[in-house]
């Protein structure tokens, strides 16, 4: 069975500084990987996804992530954060089987951007 680990529960960072949010997963089969963002009192929305092909994927709001199969990681990065990036970020994995419908989420990382 798959699982998702996000080692950093809280990440404070100054405005315009770079940030990396870490995600590791475990699975014995092929996976798709996702990063979702959740703003206060809202549902989750997709930031980016890795399905296949290039291991570096770009998403909305200037975020990107790199899939590393050997390290089973999918870290999220942004070169320069903005105040509006303050939110909860969730890494998720869907596992192949009969379909990719089973989606498991990590515990989340709270990103706080400091002015």
């Amino acid at each position, binding site marked *: 069975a798959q699982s*998702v680990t996000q080692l950093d*529960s809280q990440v404070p960072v100054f405005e315009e500084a770079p940030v990396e949010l870490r995600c590791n997963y475990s699975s014995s089969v092929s996976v*798709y990987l*996702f990063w*979702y963002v959740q703003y206060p*009192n*809202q*549902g*989750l*929305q*997709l930031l980016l*996804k890795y*399905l296949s092909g290039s291991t570096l994927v770009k998403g909305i709001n200037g975020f990107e992530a790199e899939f590393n199969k050997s390290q089973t990681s999918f870290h999220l990065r942004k070169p320069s954060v903005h105040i509006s990036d303050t939110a909860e970020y*969730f890494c*998720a994995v*869907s596992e192949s089987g009969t*379909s*990719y*419908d*089973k*989606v*498991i*989420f*990590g*515990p*989340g990382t*709270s990103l706080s951007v400091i002015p």
Partner: protein
Amino acid sequence: EAGVVQSPRYKIIEKKQPVAFWCNPISGHNTLYWYLQNLGQGPELLIRYENEEAVDDSQLPKDRFSAERLKGVDSTLKIQPAELGDSAVYLCASSGTSGGANTGELFFGEGSRLTVL
């Protein structure tokens, strides 16, 4: 295109009372999910539907929770009776197919926040 719609957004009840949440997925999405999200934690799957069939309900506490998805479109999640520990956000999500395959990309509603007093 309308997104996933959930109601109510907020609900406050006393313990032992019943409560129900409703979800209307994105049109054409066959897969519907109910997730539980406790404060400061990631979503945890309660139940997953493929059309009208519950294909994964292993994490649904069946003694007090029930769900249905009649006609394979909208869905209702019920708790009866509610307990203090049920206070959380209940998220509904749906997914469809792209190029004939479901990739697991989820589209979420805004959630229903339950407070049990």
